[in-house]
Structures are given as structure tokens and as C-alpha cells.
């Protein structure tokens, strides 16, 4: 199953330039060669800023109902109101918090756990590797959404459970990626030298191998972040995500949106647009980072 010819970045350059040294010039080069990626980075930055500054940016309390029901955009309510008279703009702004928190937390959780598994499997090799590979195969065989749904339903709707549920499908992807990196680096001369000198396994793993998987790791996180945000939105849409009164983009689209779509199309447009832009931004950024860090494409 792992025969896909996918451009998976492998930090295989023997010289292994430390990632940090080339950062400044790399940023400028990034801007020049990856216009799409820069746009993505800006979108992501906007998302983070919105989430952090939600209280400042919002014009109303996102949960406060009013008698201005289904009001059109304009005046007090920049994007209109929903069927309970709640300001849509403020709800969309605050919704970014849920998406970002759940997205980042679940991606990090999954990536770190998966990365550790991949590190151990790749480094140890042999039976451990085989076993973990099969385990990862199994986890990857179920559709992400089905897995997250079953978990969310099993554990119950809450913020913590949503994060756990979404992080699980990420683990096998992270494990596979890190394992591939590790396999390549493990064979390098200076690693063997370190072992020959008697450096302990753990130290080798942590000090020599891990830093060089940072590149692909970062790419993985940005790539998966978009997916996590989407899954959270879908879970909320189906009723299994974060419960009221926290405004969640996915849930905003489930209850009132379709019902009042003819009368108040803004209820359908804005939350969906918010999700799309957030995910679009992370995907663009992820793509660009991957292109940048993959040495095989570097020579173009």
C-alpha cells in the first residue's frame, strides 16, 4: 500500500544543514518562489490573529440573543443575524477559536504521538518496526471521518474528546513520515560513528536523528492542520463536536443555515467561507513548505 509515488520530503542530504542557519535567507527566497505559499501563510496568520483577538474584533457577544431576528447585513450587525437574533459576524470571529484550538491541539497530539512511534519503529527496526507498521496500516484503513465519528460518539461530545477523536487518524500518517525519515538518516556515517563511540540509543535518537526530521514534521503539521479543521467542522455539523454555547463554524451550518437559506443566505455563506479560507490557507502553506524542503525539487 505504501507504493504511492508521492513526493515525501526526506531530509537525506548528508551534509544535513541545520535548519536554523539558513532561515533568514530562506524566508526571502520562499516569498519569491512560492507566491501561493506566502498567500497561505498570510491566511494562516490572519486565522491565528482572529482567534487571539476575537474578543476585540467581535462587535457583540456571540451567544447573546436579540429580537432582531434574521436581520440582513448592515448597520449594527455587519454580517446580519441568525434566527435567534445573534450577530453572525461575532459568531464567525469567535468560531475561529474553536477551529484553531481543536485543529492545532489535535494535530500536535497526533503528530507527536505518531512521530514518537515512527521514531522508535524506524530506529529499532526488526519486529518492532513490523508490528508498528501493521498497526499503522490498520489505523489508516478506516476512513478518517468514520473513525473520528465513532470515537466522538463513544466518548461523548466535548472539547477534549473532539481533540482526541481527531488526533487518532493523524497518528499513522505522522508515524509513516517520521519512520521514513529515520530510516534514511539511520544509515548515515556519522550516526554509525556515534554508536561506535558508545553513545546510547536514546541519545542518538534524540540528538542526531530527531532534529533532522523537523523539516518533514513541520510540513506534516501544516498539511494535517487543514484536515483537522475540516473534520472538526464535519463533526460539529453532524452534532458530535463541541457543544453550545461555544460558536463553532460547523454547527452554525447545521442547524439554522439550510432552513433559512432562502431568506438569509448569509447564514450559509459566511461560516462556510471561513472554514474554506482557513483550510485553504493551511493547505497552500503546507504545499509550499513541502516543495521548499524537498531537495529533489530544490534543483528546479
Amino acid at each position, binding site marked *: *500500500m505504501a*507504493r*504511492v*509515488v*508521492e*513526493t515525501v520530503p526526506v531530509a537525506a542530504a548528508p551534509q544535513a544543514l541545520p535548519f536554523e542557519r539558513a532561515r533568514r535567507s530562506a524566508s526571502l527566497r520562499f516569498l519569491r518562489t512560492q507566491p*501561493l505559499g506566502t498567500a497561505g501563510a498570510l491566511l494562516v496568520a490572519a486565522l491565528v490573529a482572529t482567534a487571539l483577538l476575537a474578543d476585540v474584533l467581535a462587535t457583540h457577544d456571540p451567544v447573546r440573543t436579540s429580537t432582531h431576528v434574521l436581520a440582513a447585513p448592515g448597520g449594527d450587525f455587519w454580517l446580519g443575524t441568525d434566527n435567534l437574533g445573534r450577530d453572525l459576524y461575532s459568531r464567525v470571529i469567535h468560531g475561529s477559536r474553536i477551529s484553531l484550538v481543536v485543529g492545532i491541539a489535535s494535530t500536535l497530539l497526533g503528530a507527536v504521538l505518531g512521530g514518537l512511534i515512527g521514531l522508535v519503529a524506524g530506529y529499532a527496526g526488526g519486529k518492532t518496526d513490523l508490528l508498528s507498521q*501493521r*498497526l499503522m*496500516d*490498520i*489505523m*489508516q*484503513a*478506516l*476512513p*478518517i*471521518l*468514520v473513525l473520528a*465519528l*465513532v*470515537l466522538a*460518539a*463513544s*466518548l*461523548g461530545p466535548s472539547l477534549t474528546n473532539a481533540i482526541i477523536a481527531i488526533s487518532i487518524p493523524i497518528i499513522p500518517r505522522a508515524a509513516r513520515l517520521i519512520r521514513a525519515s529515520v530510516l534514511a538518516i539511520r544509515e548515515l556515517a556519522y550516526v554509525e560513528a556515534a554508536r561506535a563511540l558508545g553513545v546510547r540509543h536514546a541519545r542518538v535518537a534524540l540528538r542526531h536523528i530527531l532534529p533532522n526530521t523537523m523539516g518533514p514534521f513541520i510540513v506534516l503539521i501544516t498539511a494535517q492542520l*487543514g484536515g483537522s479543521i*475540516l473534520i472538526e*467542522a*464535519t463533526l460539529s*455539523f*453532524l*452534532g*458530535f463536536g463541541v457543544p453550545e454555547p461555544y460558536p463553532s463554524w*460547523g454547527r452554525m*451550518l*447545521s442547524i439554522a*443555515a*439550510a432552513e433559512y*437559506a432562502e431568506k438569509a*443566505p448569509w447564514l*450559509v455563506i459566511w*461560516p*462556510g467561507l471561513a*472554514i*474554506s*479560507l482557513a*483550510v*485553504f490557507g493551511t*493547505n*497552500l502553506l503546507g*504545499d509550499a513548505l513541502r516543495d521548499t524542503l524537498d531537495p529533489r525539487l530544490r534543483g528546479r
Partner: protein
Amino acid sequence: MRGYVAKRLLIALVTLVGMSMVIFVLMRLAPGNIVDIIFESAGYVDQADKKQLEHELGVDRPIPVQYARWMGELVSGDLGKSYRYDMRAWVIIKPRLPVTIELAVLALFFSILLGVPAGVVSAARQNKPIDYVLRVLSLAGLSMPSFWLAMIVILLFVRAVGWIPSITYVSPFVDLKANLWQFMVPALAVGYRSSALIMRITRSAMLEVMREDYIRTAQAKGQRPTSVVWRHALKNAGLPVITLIGIEFAFLIGGLVVTETVFNLPGVARYLVEAIQFRDYPVVQNLTMFIAVVVVLANLTVDLLYAWVDPRIKYGNA
């Protein structure tokens, strides 16, 4: 070749068994006793019924026995009982299967129809404007939540063409035109998103292949770009694409869950969501396993197809 097939079969089997264990454990993560849950969600009140339920569900036996019993039932094709509706699960699932299958097949068809040519064009005109446009379009497709896309599509189609989501399923054997009219829009909605993945993979596979020396040789020999692209590159890029379709399948099924819900299609995926909502846990367990089997079988088929097509495996000893 034979060795390869045997190895793949074994892996598929191991994966299935492993997945069954994972699903078994997942379902027991739910807080509370599964008997209590069923007891409540099916509306029982009498405590005497609880004993009956315990016996039916087999929770009075040790866990390995429960697992073995479940495996035995699955292997014999028994998908258990829906406690919510008080019917055999198979009776409810059976009429829903053709709906999901048709939607999946049509969606796959559209995703290939849209994705492969887009990927090829994008690779052939790498970094030209058309490449950027296609990449942005496909990425947009992957970024939009499927249910939002579905909602927008419904809104547009209802306004523009007077199309509405089906309210009951019409079999293609009964009325093909009506059936296609119902399925076209949802299949396109799912297909568009899947096509984005296919487009990306086709593009990168094509780029890989086009860098190969023999392509550059052909170009140097003066062969026109179009025939080079289509004849040599596509044939060899085809293999990874076929493989992807297998992996794709899992992604597709995820998309079906939402699509069936929004487009009101009475399929198996939507029933899974309903069963979860009703806490009909035995059905959830079996249906999830069912989906897992389908996915593994699809991957296995693709693997075998790959073996048959790739000469390195067919004749060598991979």
C-alpha cells in the same frame, strides 16, 4: 507473482483482524455499560428485560469469548440486531446498499474524469498560469467542507434548474432517467473533492516520470510534446494513480457520510450516522466493521491489479 499475491492476501487478512480488534475496543470505550446504553436507547423500563439483554449481547461472558462470538457471527454474515428498530440489521442495511454503491461508483467515475486530465495538463504546463489555476481549483475543492459544498450546490441547483434532492430512492432498473437525475448532483459534489486528490497525485506522478531520462531522450529526438506526454508518461504514471484510487476509497467513504445526509439519500453511510446518534451500538460496531472490510477489499483489489499490470512484479520476484 504468486508469492506477491499470497503476501498481499495475508496482509489484508491480518489488517482485517487487527481492525476488528480496534473496533471492538473502541465501542467499549463508551462511558457506561453497553447493556445500560442499549437498555435506555431502546426504551426498556423493566429490569427483567435487562437480564435478557445481557444474555443476548453476551456481556456476561469473558471478553475474549465475546470477541470470538462476534467474529463468528460476522463470518457467517450475521450483522446483528438493531435495538432501536427491533429488526435484524441486515434487513435495514440491504435496501440501502445499492444507494451507497451507486453513489460511490458515480463519484469515483467523476473524480477520475475530472482529476486525471487536470493533473496531466497541470504537469505538462508546469508553472504556467493554467497550472496555477488548476492547482488552486483543486486545492479549493479539498479545502471546502463537503457539507458546505453540498449545501451551496443544492441552493444553486434549486434556484437555477429547479432540481431538488431526492425524497425517495428510485432504482436505476426501475427508472434510469429519474435515478441519474437524483444522483448526478451528489456524485459531482463528492467527485469534485476526490478529483482534487487524484489531480494532485497524477500531477506529481507525471512530473516524476517526465524527469526520467527516456522521456528527455524522446524529446531530444524531436518527438512532439503532446505525443510524448500522452503515450509514454501517462502509461507509466498510471500505476501510482491506480494505487491511489485504492487509498482514495477510504476518503471517498468519508465523503459519502456527509453527502448522503445532506442530499437525503437513504444509504448505508447515513445509516451509520443515525445508528451512532441512536446509540444503537451493536449496529455501529458491525457497520463500521463492514466498511472496514469494504475498504480493505478495495485496497486488495488495487494491489492485485497493480501486480498484474506492473511487469516488475509479474515476472520478477518482488
